[in-house]
């Protein structure tokens, strides 16, 4: 592939990304959130078409208009979620649409025989007549692989195939991949698990902001350099001074109370993505949660907020042990949570700004179940001024707002109910630069007023500028904590790069 461009109206998802994969190699594709990984994969698999650029397979230009075409053209894909049919048998799944037939019916004998053969080629021997769902995700991935290879694809794309596999299963997958490599195929391995990349890949391409920033052989690329390339260089200026000069209404000027512990999470676990995470947050503190994709940060946040049930571990709020069963309880106890997926878990599309903002505070704005529109409007007006939200009117549908303003509305939603602890998951994602600064300032301001904040972010600069402490997570565990003043970027990068090795090293 060379020079792929894919522009969506208003934003460029891919801006001149380039990728060269050779036969007989396993090539890694990495990048942070929004780097363009998924889009590139979509273009390659035929699920999307590039606005500019071209794809060359063995020197031949190709143009796929659908996933089926890509499959026929020799590109096989394994997805993160096994996209097969659970109830059909393994053999049926492998051959769906391409079953060996006798007259107009499926020739069961040949079907099962050939399925067995396909699986043998990748070293798997199972009963192919049983339903797919009776097998573990690892085996299911193998079946998906077998299907992908059915059309004798020479180019394999594996999009985060190891997310639901355990260590042993991953090893098996890697063995298969090495075998395929030996057969002269080209494999594109998309992942964010650095240990895996280094274990099995020959070369790595890093995407950032839609461009290719780096292509190197794994041997000559250190983990720190890799992570640095993924996350970008540090911004020069510090933005700590932004909160001043905004005319914020603040009685307590820069007086941060520290020491009162608000949250203590101990050894939270919810397999498979949250393994063992612990952290504390005090009043007036902004604690940052850093880590690569899939490190388990969102899972930790959701577990604290009771959005997902905990399998083990304890949560204490202001010293008292709590066990919430649903977000409503957590909210009543004073916890707020701003989800990273604004569209699906944040805004209520179709409702107005006013409605969205006051959703959590509704019980407090009502008497005898009747909402006091007057108090509602007052509150919303206050919030709009305080946060600088740009809207046409209070009753404007929230869908019409820009991402930044929507995020402000969601932030205001939690501020309406005077929370004790606010959990923010990627609060500045997908927002224009100006609004990002404003939101960061708001967070600072909140902490200054005594709120405890847990902030998840992939932008290290944000974390370093605004957090008193940064906790690093990797593969479901909290592995390191930094509280220097100022916190060094390299320390964090090192922790992220070395992942759980850090745990072993420091005996934490």
């Amino acid at each position, binding site marked *: 592939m060379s020079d792929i461009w894919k522009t969506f109206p208003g934003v460029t998802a891919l801006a001149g990304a380039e990728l060269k994969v050779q036969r007989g190699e396993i090539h890694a594709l990495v990048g942070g959130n929004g780097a363009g990984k998924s889009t590139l994969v979509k273009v390659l698999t035929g699920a999307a078409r590039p606005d500019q650029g071209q794809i060359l397979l063995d020197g031949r230009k190709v143009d796929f208009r659908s*996933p*089926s075409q890509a*499959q026929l053209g020799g590109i096989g894909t394994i*997805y993160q979620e096994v*996209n*097969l*049919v*659970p*109830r*059909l048998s393994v053999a*049926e799944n492998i051959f*769906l*649409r391409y*079953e060996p*037939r006798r007259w*107009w*019916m*499926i020739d*069961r004998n040949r079907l099962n025989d050939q399925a067995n053969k396909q699986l043998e080629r990748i070293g798997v021997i199972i*009963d192919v007549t*049983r*339903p797919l*769902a*009776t097998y573990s995700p690892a085996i299911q991935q193998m079946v998906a692989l077998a*299907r992908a290879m059915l059309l004798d694809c020479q180019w394999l794309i594996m999009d985060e195939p190891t997310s639901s596999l355990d260590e042993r299963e991953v090893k098996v997958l890697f063995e298969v991949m090495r075998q395929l490599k030996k057969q002269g195929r080209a494999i594109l391995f998309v992942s964010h698990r650095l240990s895996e990349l280094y274990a099995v890949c020959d070369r790595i391409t890093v995407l950032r902001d839609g461009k290719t920033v780096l292509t190197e052989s794994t041997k000559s690329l250190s983990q720190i350099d890799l992570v640095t390339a993924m996350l970008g260089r540090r911004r020069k200026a510090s933005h700590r001074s932004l909160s001043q000069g905004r005319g914020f209404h603040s009685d307590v000027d820069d007086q941060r109370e520290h020491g009162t512990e608000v949250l203590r999470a101990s050894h939270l676990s919810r397999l498979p993505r949250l393994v063992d995470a612990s952290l504390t947050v005090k009043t007036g503190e902004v604690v940052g949660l850093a880590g690569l994709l899939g490190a388990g940060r969102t899972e930790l946040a959701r577990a604290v907020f009771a959005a997902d049930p905990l399998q083990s571990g304890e949560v204490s709020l202001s010293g008292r042990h709590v066990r919430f069963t649903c977000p409503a309880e957590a909210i009543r106890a004073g916890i707020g949570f701003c989800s990273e997926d604004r569209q699906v878990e944040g805004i209520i599309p179709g409702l107005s700004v006013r409605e969205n903002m006051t959703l959590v505070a509704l019980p407090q704005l009502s008497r005898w179940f009747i909402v006091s529109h007057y108090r509602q409007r007052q509150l919303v007006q206050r919030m709009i001024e305080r946060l600088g939200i740009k809207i046409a009117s209070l009753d404007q549908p929230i869908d019409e707002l820009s991402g930044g303003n929507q995020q402000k509305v969601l932030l205001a939603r939690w501020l309406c109910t005077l929370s004790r602890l606010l959990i923010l998951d990627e609060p500045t994602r997908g927002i224009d630069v100006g609004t990002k600064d404003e939101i960061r300032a708001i967070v600072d301001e909140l902490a200054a007023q005594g709120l405890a904040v847990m902030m998840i972010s992939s932008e290290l600069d944000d974390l370093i500028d605004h957090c008193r402490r940064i906790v690093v997570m990797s593969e479901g565990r909290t592995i390191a904590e930094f509280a220097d003043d100022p916190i060094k970027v390299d320390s964090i990068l090192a922790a992220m790069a070395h992942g759980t090795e850090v745990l072993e090293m420091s005996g934490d």
Partner: protein
Amino acid sequence: MPTDLPSSDPSLKMVGIRLFRENVVLVVFLALTLLAAFRYEGFLGHHNVTEFLRYNARFGFIALGMTFVIITGGIDLSVGSVVALASVLAALCSPYGLLPTLVIPVLAGSLVGAINGSVVALAGVPSFIATLVSMMAARGVALILANDQSIPVDLQSTVITIGEANIFGWIPAPVILLILVYVCGWFVLNQAPIGRQVVAVGDDEAAARLMGVSVHGIKFWVYVASGGLAGWAGVLLAASTFSGLPTEGVGWELQVIAAVVIGGTLLTGGSGSVGGTLVGVLLLGLIFKILDFENGVGGYDLKAHWQSVIRGAFLLVVIVFQSRRAVKDR
């Protein structure tokens, strides 16, 4: 791991339990038949059995189509009206020869099915609304064609002979056809590529699409099949009642849906059994028959309208049971 999928534990006890669980409906059906045979004099008499089968054959045909529709995750509420429409058409065509009498109603049913399929598959309208609407429309068309009356079937028509015929002297012709159609249906669902695709669409539509299955096409054709089979049931109805009744078929869709679900097909889609549907149809028909007998013979005074309560109760039990298994593996 989903618990409603066959496990592979080979011990005799487990095999026995599994066989029982998978065939509960059949067991219940056989048990009820035995009970009834004991209780009522002549219950298993030759004439009773043949007429029972002949009567329920029409539901059987509809239920087969409905099974496929439900497997794809949809539902077809228009079948009752299609039966009415088809019976009217059959009656209207009966003076013109056998072929039109057989073909036109089925085509009409398929046409309704095609409309259903287009609206559901292409426009993405939920199936219950789309088919509720066509239920209304088809009924209206039936009434218009019949001029709000019942149309007598030409008594000379061969279709009546076919409806009444007994092959080998005792098996009603429609029943033979039913068995043939069900055997075909079984093969199509389990051994034909398209049947596997139907299951795929119902089980995981997104995955099926990614695997290259034409989801739109599959959805479209199952509704056509459902409509066509309902059309055929209408022909049978006309043949046995000697008239095309535009007001018939009311509530048939509910009976058929209940039969399909009781027979083991999941209303949520992705899993279904052709054989199970047949047993479900027979079971519900048997309950009706028993109520009939009970009225005439037994000490209790069970009226026929208990049948829909019983249908609903069965359905409820099955649905809750199905949901319990599903919840377990979430």
